């Protein structure tokens, strides 16, 4: 028999992106991203932003998993896709997702992710999984 468990060891402490069976996309990455919707927006806000105390930068990661693919995410947020506006990011924080509800766990390439302009990305939300 093969070793028990889904073999997610290589993804522990990495930045990951999870797609759940109900079609949500949950990502762990620096919270700082959330504060910068776009560079032009930042320019408009810069006089204000300097007066706001920024939260400390905390890198989110995959904290743990088990043989049923239950996973623990730290500093997670949800990326909400829509066709009307760019991707919205909702802060979720510490999240435990039951394995039954997980479709895909992907390793995020930070360089590629930094190049994405989420404010311009439009798409239908993913469909829920139908068994």
């Amino acid at each position, binding site marked *: *028999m*093969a*070793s028990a*468990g*889904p*073999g*997610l060891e290589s*993804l522990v402490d990495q930045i990951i*992106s999870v*797609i759940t*069976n109900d*079609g949500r*996309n949950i990502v762990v990455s620096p919270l700082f991203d959330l504060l910068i919707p776009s560079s032009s927006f930042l320019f408009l806000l810069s006089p204000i932003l300097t007066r706001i105390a920024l939260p400390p930068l905390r890198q989110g990661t995959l904290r743990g998993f088990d043989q049923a*693919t239950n996973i623990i995410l730290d500093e997670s947020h949800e*990326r909400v*896709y829509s066709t009307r506006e760019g991707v919205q990011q909702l802060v979720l924080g510490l999240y435990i997702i039951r*394995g*039954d509800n*997980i*479709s*895909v*766990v*992907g*390793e*995020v*390439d*930070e360089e*590629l*992710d930094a190049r*994405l302009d989420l404010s311009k*990305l439009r*798409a*239908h939300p*993913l*469909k*829920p*999984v*139908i*068994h």
Partner: protein
Amino acid sequence: MGPAFPPNPAHNNMLFFSYFKELVGKEVTVELKNDLAIRGTLHSVDQYLNIKLENTRVVDQDKYPHMLSVRNCFIRGSVVRYVLLPQDGVDIDILHDATRREARGG
């Protein structure tokens, strides 16, 4: 006449588990039950038929930009609808023999 299905579902999977292990290193497309199709190099498979792919890209990236920054991923076996295999990854004769042996109960 024997039972239509082997009594142990875990045993039922072993044939496909062994089969997919033979495909490691080959390029496959995995279609999920949410219609997302992901193409990549098969890195590993386990007894639940969970699949790990490398150098992944989503087949229709314009429609599904949700994984644009993902290059390696784990796919839970329970959400896989199809695995599209490379032409040279299918040996019909061996599969035929193996499935017949399986149907006879080992």
